[in-house]
């Protein structure tokens, strides 16, 4: 189980494939993201990739749609939108289908346990079907 502290702000949670634009610049970041993430893919990681500050975990069961949050990469990431405004490499459109937009009013925490994501405000994204029963 790994926990990180999050500052107040607007966050997007979803598939990195939907957050990084499929441009030359976006592809450069995502290639490095995969190279870094897969060095320790079982861990919930806080990474800084070419100036993009993000949190990333794999899901328990790969591709899928987990409580409305979808992934084609078998991973889900969390990014503070306020820190990356005007970053042309990113698509930070809020309230898109398949993604979750979170407004954190205060400092909060995010925890990943058995590849399930839970926020201290009570929002959870369960990717391990054994934990749904």
């Amino acid at each position, binding site marked *: 189980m790994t926990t990180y502290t999050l500052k107040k702000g607007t966050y997007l949670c979803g*598939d990195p*494939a939907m957050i990084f634009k499929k441009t030359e610049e976006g592809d450069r970041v995502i290639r490095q993201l*995969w190279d870094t993430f897969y060095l320790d893919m079982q861990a919930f990681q806080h990474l800084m990739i070419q100036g993009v500050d993000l949190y990333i975990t794999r899901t328990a069961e790969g591709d*899928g*749609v987990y409580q409305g949050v*979808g992934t*084609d990469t078998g991973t889900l990431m969390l990014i503070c939108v306020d820190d990356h405004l005007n970053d042309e490499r990113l698509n930070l459109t809020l309230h898109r289908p398949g993604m979750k937009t979170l407004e954190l009013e205060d400092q909060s925490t995010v925890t990943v346990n058995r590849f399930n994501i839970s926020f201290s405000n009570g929002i959870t994204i369960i990717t391990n079907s054994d934990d749904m029963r």
Partner: protein
Amino acid sequence: MMLNATWDGGATWNREHVWPNSRLGMDRVDGYEKNQASDLHNLRASSVSINSSKSDRVFLDGSGVADITSYGFYPGDDHRGDVARIIFYMAITYDFLELIDDDTLLANEDDHYTLEGARMGKLSILLAWHKQDPISEFEIARNNRIASIQGNRNPFIDHPEFVHLIWENKTIGDLLKPVTTSYQHDVIMYIDFRKEHYDNLYA
């Protein structure tokens, strides 16, 4: 690469949706439901890093091994025909899935996980791959195995000529015209073989 033969919870390999999950027109999936997201014909075992690289990308041309190419993904010389026939299967099995050529629509990701965004491509490239990478013994064995479990077949593995009848507006007569390529020759030999088979069967 050595991988576990049984499902290990995604630790070493993924169940990859060839027609991407985000482009299947579903915003929620119940893990126990049978639907377009659980169709075995659309699922392939994949290394986790390849699954991540392919992600929600459409299929675009390339050469050599699997890699990102422009806004799309090239599955590799040895897999491109398999991929094409899986995508064709999905397009005819689920009539709300759209197979198109329009780059602008294919690159739009804002309607993923909606019915409007249930589109995939690129059709013209997939048609070319179907010809360039003919059906393999592996695909036939996989089709047989899935049929024994799921109860239906990928018709484009059993009848490769159907692709030309459906997406290239060809007729059986067109396919029986004198040939110039080895691929067309293979297709015609296949049709002749089946005709002979049925003639004998019902003689």
